[in-house]
């Protein structure tokens, strides 16, 4: 745009399908499997699904379109794209806020991926079908073994670094082209098996029965809003980063917006067909999170015919969902840091992953610390990142500019001017509302204080650091290849 920098050396997705699978791989994480089915069942089943769908179309899809279009237009990672939107100066710190939040997210997400790795490895060892196996004792002993949790964390960070080291096409694209279809096949296989079990109807009823009265309850809409925002990764810089590697004639709104949001949600729907029919068929109580995947489901597999094989299918799929998100979230950091510094991609991968490993040690060591970090950043850090990106687009670059210059260019669908007020007013309002709601809900608690510290310090640090850096560094146009060189 304003700075004409050469983009010829920048990597691109090899195929359209590779880009789409990268988007899905990034957005589908553990939450689709251990959170979505339970939240759906708890908030009116079909009524929640309807509320979720409305919010996807109203907020997540337009927001993702904006992110992908900005990334494609700027051809830069998060900080570079924000700079294109706001100009040089301290406000580029909005991009740094996103980077800091992603880094914080990865420090506790990598240990969670380590848990899924641990369970996947044990599924291959047939541990869950051993006589005398006790799910709760197994989980407790794992959480009480910091050395093992740190080992899993280390392996996960090593795997992420290895994939990223090979670059966009040879690393990420190769992995997601296999991992995402494999995840879908694994979940579909389990869903087919689950719904054909005696007693599965009760699980389907729990998850899908439409209870219309829930549509009139604010809790349903808050839960659906949280799901629409967090499961799509809106405003975390992932869509900007992935979009920045699009090819010249690629579409942004259809693939990056509509397909990504609905495809990602479809995997949650598939998990809903798989999980609760399974849990109810074996008479276990419904729950979400760690208790669902690491306690309830591992008690189900020994009861099933060929249960050991089904455990492998489930935990392999679960691990793939988790690791692909970790890879793409880390790529957000790698792309932008390699662009903003003089480090090569390889050096950046090593530095970023090394820091994630180091700062992830407390979460790998203590589940309580991880829970605290998760609540703090899920409630305030991630909405803050979304707000930072949407403010940069909606209030500095301007949605109409982006719409005519990038969103509708080579687009698979036409995006009309109704999109503009959604980006400029609706999404920022929703993000502020959700942070205020979380603050009200946790008023006076440690978690709220930690959240307020994040809300205040991250923007200040971002502004001051980027003001200093932008003032010190004159533009180095064209001196370094972009972040994703293969």
């Amino acid at each position, binding site marked *: 745009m304003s700075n004409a920098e050469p983009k010829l050396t920048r990597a691109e997705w090899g195929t359209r399908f590779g880009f789409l699978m990268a988007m899905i791989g990034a957005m589908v994480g553990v939450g689709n499997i251990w959170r979505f089915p339970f939240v759906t069942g708890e908030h009116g089943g079909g009524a929640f699904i309807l509320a979720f769908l409305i919010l996807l179309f109203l907020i997540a899809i337009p927001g993702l379109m904006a992110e992908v279009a900005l990334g494609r237009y700027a051809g830069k990672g998060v900080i570079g794209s924000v700079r294109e939107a706001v100009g040089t100066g301290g406000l580029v710190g909005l991009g740094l806020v996103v980077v800091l939040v992603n880094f914080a997210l990865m420090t506790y997400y990598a240990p969670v991926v380590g848990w899924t790795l641990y369970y996947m490895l044990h599924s291959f060892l047939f541990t869950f079908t051993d006589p005398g196996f006790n799910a709760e004792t197994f989980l407790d002993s794992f959480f009480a073994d910091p050395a093992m949790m740190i080992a899993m964390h280390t392996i996960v960070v090593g795997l992420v670094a290895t994939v990223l080291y090979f670059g966009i096409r040879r690393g990420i694209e190769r992995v997601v082209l296999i991992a995402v279809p494999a995840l879908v096949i694994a979940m579909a296989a389990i869903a087919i098996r689950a719904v054909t079990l005696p007693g599965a109807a009760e699980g389907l009823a729990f998850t*899908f029965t439409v209870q219309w009265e829930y549509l009139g309850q604010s809790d349903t809409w808050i839960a659906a809003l949280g799901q629409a925002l967090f499961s799509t990764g809106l405003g975390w810089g992932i869509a900007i980063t992935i979009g920045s590697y699009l090819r010249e004639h690629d579409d942004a709104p259809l693939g990056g917006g509509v397909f990504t949001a609905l495809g990602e949600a479809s995997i949650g729907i598939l998990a809903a067909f798989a999980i609760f029919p399974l849990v109810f068929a074996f008479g276990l109580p419904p729950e979400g999170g760690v208790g669902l995947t690491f306690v309830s489901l591992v008690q189900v597999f020994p009861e099933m015919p060929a249960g050991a094989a089904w455990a492998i299918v489930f935990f392999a799929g679960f691990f793939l969902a988790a690791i692909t998100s970790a890879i793409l979230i880390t790529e957000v950091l790698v792309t932008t840091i390699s662009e903003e510094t003089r480090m090569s991609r390889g050096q950046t991968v090593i530095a970023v992953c090394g820091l994630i490993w180091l700062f992830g040690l407390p979460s790998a060591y203590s589940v309580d610390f991880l829970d605290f970090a998760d609540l703090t950043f899920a409630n305030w850090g991630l909405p803050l990142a979304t707000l930072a990106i949407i403010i940069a687009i909606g209030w500095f670059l301007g949605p109409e500019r982006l719409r005519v*210059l990038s969103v509708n260019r080579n*687009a698979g669908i036409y995006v009309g001017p109704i999109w503009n007020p959604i980006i400029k007013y609706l999404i920022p309002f929703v993000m502020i509302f959700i942070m205020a709601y979380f603050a009200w809900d946790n008023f006076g608690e440690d978690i709220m204080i930690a959240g307020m510290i994040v809300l205040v310090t991250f923007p200040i640090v971002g502004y001051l650091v980027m003001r200093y850096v932008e003032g010190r560094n004159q533009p180095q146009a064209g001196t370094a290849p972009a972040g994703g060189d293969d």
Partner: protein
Amino acid sequence: MTEAITVETWIGMGVAIIAFWGIASWALVRTMRQEDRKLKLIERVGSIDTYSPRGLADLRAWIEENPDDPYIGDAKEAYNECVETLKEIDETFYHWSEEEIEELETVD
């Protein structure tokens, strides 16, 4: 299993499958087919039109309304590139009529 499922559950499952898997599958097939068509057009004709008629009309309107905008250079370049391509190629990617193409003019 099926005898225990109520109408409300069937509705919930139906909506979930159609609204999510249905639309996501439609989007996937549509975008992949478009990609295929774009590649074939580029191979055959050399370049493709970059805006739909409505998209290009919006861009032109924006250019006329914002002559002093810092992005005006990019906007004009994008507009002219699309117009010139449309006048050069025989087969378009978007649904352009010959009359619509004839009426187009580049901007200075």
